[in-house]
């Protein structure tokens, strides 16, 4: 059975491009956070990559940060309330774009599932963590992990 090789620094490179191009309109707002920071009110978004081996790209951030992400993506005002559907749509799309770009780095061409979003961390028992990247977007933690499942 083949195994997933760590993506390593390519994860933050991809995430930085995604945020600079589609969310912030300029680079510099998503930065690496060497020691990470705990999430207090987490929400998760993930996509699975099937390419000989099955991998999962899992993004996690706090709900308040996901609201800010949705406001930025949906071009809403700073105080506009964000509905659950908008949160799911926006955070899911970020996971989709990050996951799709990661999938393209795999040696075998594969497929991508539609994104899923939830307040509970998806069950990863039996899965192996391949990568863990701690990032900070506009001062708030955002984690990306990659799993072989």
């Amino acid at each position, binding site marked *: 059975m083949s195994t997933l090789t760590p993506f390593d620094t*390519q994860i933050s*490179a991809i995430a930085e*491009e995604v945020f600079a*191009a589609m969310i912030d309109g*300029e680079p*510099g707002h998503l930065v690496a956070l060497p020691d990470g920071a705990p999430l207090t009110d987490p929400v998760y978004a993930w996509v699975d990559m099937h390419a000989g081996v099955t991998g999962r790209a899992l993004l996690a951030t706090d709900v308040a940060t996901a609201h800010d992400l949705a406001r930025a993506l949906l071009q809403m005002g700073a105080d506009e309330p964000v509905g659950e559907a908008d949160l799911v749509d926006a955070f899911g799309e970020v996971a989709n774009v990050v996951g799709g*770009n990661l999938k*393209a*780095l795999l040696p075998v061409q594969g497929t991508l599932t539609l994104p899923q979003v939830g307040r509970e961390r998806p069950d990863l028992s039996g899965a192996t963590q391949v990568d863990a990247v701690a990032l900070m977007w506009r001062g708030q933690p955002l984690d990306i992990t990659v799993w072989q499942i």
Partner: protein
Amino acid sequence: MTLAPDTFTFVADLVRQRSAIQLEAGKEYLVESRLLPLARDAKAGSVDAYVRALRGVPQQREYDRVVEALTTNETSWFRDVSPFKALTDHVVPELLGARPGTSSLRIWSAACSTGQEAYTIGMSLLDSAPNLRVQITATDLSEEVLTRGRSGRYSQLEVNRGLPAPMLVKHFTRVGTDWEISQRLRSQVTFSKNNLLHAPPVGGPYDVVFLRNVLIYFDLATKRDVLRRVRGVVRPGGFLFLGAAETTIGIDDGWERIPVGRSSVYRLNARRAA
């Protein structure tokens, strides 16, 4: 956030001395946005603070970075589209018709930035005239962009900028998160450092020169000087491409304007060159 007037004046003077590019009043936002990443790198609290520190302890390398940040333009592949069609459909057939038996062309891509224009010329000619030997000299002020151009590697965001998808799949391969242009195209392009205020690069005489969206930054006297120097390295009957907002008319009368489609090219007068 507003830029202090003396910050702007200092930066505008520096850029004019080094590159002859005029940053007129009203371009404060440009200085602010282009220098912000440098200020962040230097851990300065603002662009004003960054420039103040720079003025206190002059550093040539940092001055170069400021000039590069303000003179490097974002660049796309088939920028404006029509010049490249004019090249393949009009200019190259005319050059080959005028000199039967010609099997090679020399082209200068001036102010080439990271090389997209030079490679676009290469791809266009490879597809339209595969047997033609093409040698492209690509020049810029900045060593940093030349190094990137030489590598022939571009990020996903860069290949998204005006590169037709059929050409992407034909001439590029994926290398990690980047795309790399073929060895064949890379071997056609020589990147070298050149300042348009000084002597033109070796590699001529040229059949075609691309000098697009550069003259707009210069005052009239500098435009005239640059065009005169370019004229010195173009073959009689050779062609010059300028940006859509630029012309030789009223500046240098050595060129004849030839409308092609929606754009224009300029042909070096044979009379002058003879």
